[in-house]
């Protein structure tokens, strides 16, 4: 069951949230919608959930038009950024909600909820209220609740942004394993490229309501199609006047050599440790700044003020 998004546009007043977006989501895939805030990724998620009606275009599933189908009848599981749990219901009833409104027999509800509690590893907490749970636990309740009615698609809106860094990392791995286990087609929105690359089978990069590029994490990282994509992935220095076009050089692609005549002459301005790498700020002979992110051994013998040759192992140039 693949989902096709065909030529969708959506305006909010004069703001164009989605601009002619076309995209096919394959059955069982884990797709990331990546982009800065306001780029349209969340709007697309809401269109998929049936919470927002597009101005133009359609959403189809195996040839059936879902566009005008409301959120209630779409059977998608949506996990909100801040989880949106029902604060007056306990964990059990939160998860059971979609089954209760479908008037399923109590025995079936009980069985399904127990199954989900086991899946999200919250067996002992069935009778806690959401307020009594940690962020990571709430996240997992929200996920179990969204999965209860066996949705066709699971949609996650910035699923980890409300959690602290450590929990975020744990849950990422856990979500990936869960997806492999269940095989539910999953679309998640994020502004964090690490999250997108670590989790997704494919990544769609959004910019100003359009899909700037879509592909596997390798394709996006190795062959960015536009300056925006390269820039958004971060750790890049733009150099002008070294040719006809602007060049993009990733910090990690710069190597430094004490001798030789390769690359550009440069002077070391500053050296400092940033986590696993050493960041070296350089000034090129042309006066332009350049940054090199080196492995600690490669930076061992460098000193501030030293004259070196900076070689960009890879340069990205984009046509006009």
């Amino acid at each position, binding site marked *: 069951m693949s989902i096709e998004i065909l030529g969708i546009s959506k305006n909010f007043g004069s703001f164009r949230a989605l601009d002619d977006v076309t995209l096919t989501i394959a059955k069982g895939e884990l797709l990331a919608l990546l982009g800065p805030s306001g780029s349209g990724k969340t709007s697309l998620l809401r269109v998929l959930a*049936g919470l927002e009606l597009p101005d133009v275009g359609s959403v189809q599933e195996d040839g059936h038009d879902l566009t005008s189908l409301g959120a*209630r009848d779409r059977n998608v599981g*949506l996990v*909100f950024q801040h989880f*949106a749990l*029902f604060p007056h219901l306990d964990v059990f009833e939160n998860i059971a*909600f*979609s089954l209760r*409104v479908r008037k399923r027999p109590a025995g079936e509800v009980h069985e399904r909820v127990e199954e989900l509690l086991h899946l999200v590893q919250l067996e002992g907490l069935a009778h806690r209220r959401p307020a009594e749970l940690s962020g990571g636990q709430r996240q997992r309740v929200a996920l179990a609740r*969204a999965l209860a009615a066996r949705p066709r698609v699971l949609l996650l809106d910035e699923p980890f942004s409300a959690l602290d860094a450590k929990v975020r990392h744990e849950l990422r791995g856990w979500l990936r394993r869960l997806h492999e286990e269940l095989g539910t087609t999953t679309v998640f929105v994020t502004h964090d490229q690490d999250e997108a690359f670590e989790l997704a089978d494919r990544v769609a990069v959004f910019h100003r309501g359009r899909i700037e590029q879509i592909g596997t994490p390798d394709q996006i990282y190795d062959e960015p199609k536009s300056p925006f994509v390269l820039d958004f992935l971060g750790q890049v220095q733009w150099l002008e006047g070294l040719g006809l076009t602007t060049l993009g050089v990733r910090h990690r692609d710069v190597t430094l050599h004490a001798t030789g005549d390769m690359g550009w002459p440069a002077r070391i301005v500053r050296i400092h440790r940033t986590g696993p790498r050493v960041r070296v700020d350089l000034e090129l002979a042309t006066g332009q700044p350049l940054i090199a992110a080196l492995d600690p051994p490669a930076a061992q013998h460098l000193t501030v003020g030293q004259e070196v040759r900076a070689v960009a192992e890879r340069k990205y140039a984009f046509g006009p």
Partner: protein
Amino acid sequence: MIRILLTFLAMAWLTLMVLAPVVIVLVEALSAGVGAWWQAVSDDETRTSVALSLKIAAIVVPCNAVFGVAAAWSLARFRFPGRSLLLALLDLPLSVSPVVSGLVFVLLFGAQGWFGAWLQAHDIQIIFAVPGMVLATAFVTLPMIARELLPLLESQGDDAELAARTLGASGWQVFWLVAFPRMRGALAYGVLLCTARALGEFGAVSVVSGHIRGQTDTLPLHVEILHNEYHFQAAFAAASLLLLVGVATLLLRRLHTTEAGR
């Protein structure tokens, strides 16, 4: 220094303006002893006026509760043409003098009013009768419950309700299973405030009541009548009942906030 000064000022002002009148009401009410107080309170006319006040509140409060929930919900959740007009109108009863509100109803339903002739022809009495007093009280207390709910609904946001929709809930299910349970506390408090206000309403009701003794006298109107007739102790005894309503409201509010704080 400034802290002490300001605190002292506030305390002194409160004592003068709030505590002193409360004490005076109680002292005057009990000036001739508990027996006289009880006699004044259990007097036939006083009892009728209490019954009428309760009757009016019993009609007005449920109406305003239903209206308040509907208005607050639609104002908080939907953007529709006329929304800001509705918001402004909602505040009108609070900003207009109750006497004016009363006069409006006289103008509409009184003998010389717009609908006066028609009402007379069909033998329907609104002004100088209970229906008019219900209308006037309802008007004056109209926004109280909606105003209590609106900020709560706005701060809650609609995420939980949207989540309920994506989980397959119908509009009614979203309301009864998610929205309503979350506003119960604020609704209860709004009902409490509205009841206290309805029982104590004077201005608007005074205009439409016609002061027919034993028929269109509510408790506040009865206090005024007693006072005008120089039955000071009886007037204060009746007034002490209204004071009790106020104190009860405060105590229940205390209960409500500690409950919400848990």
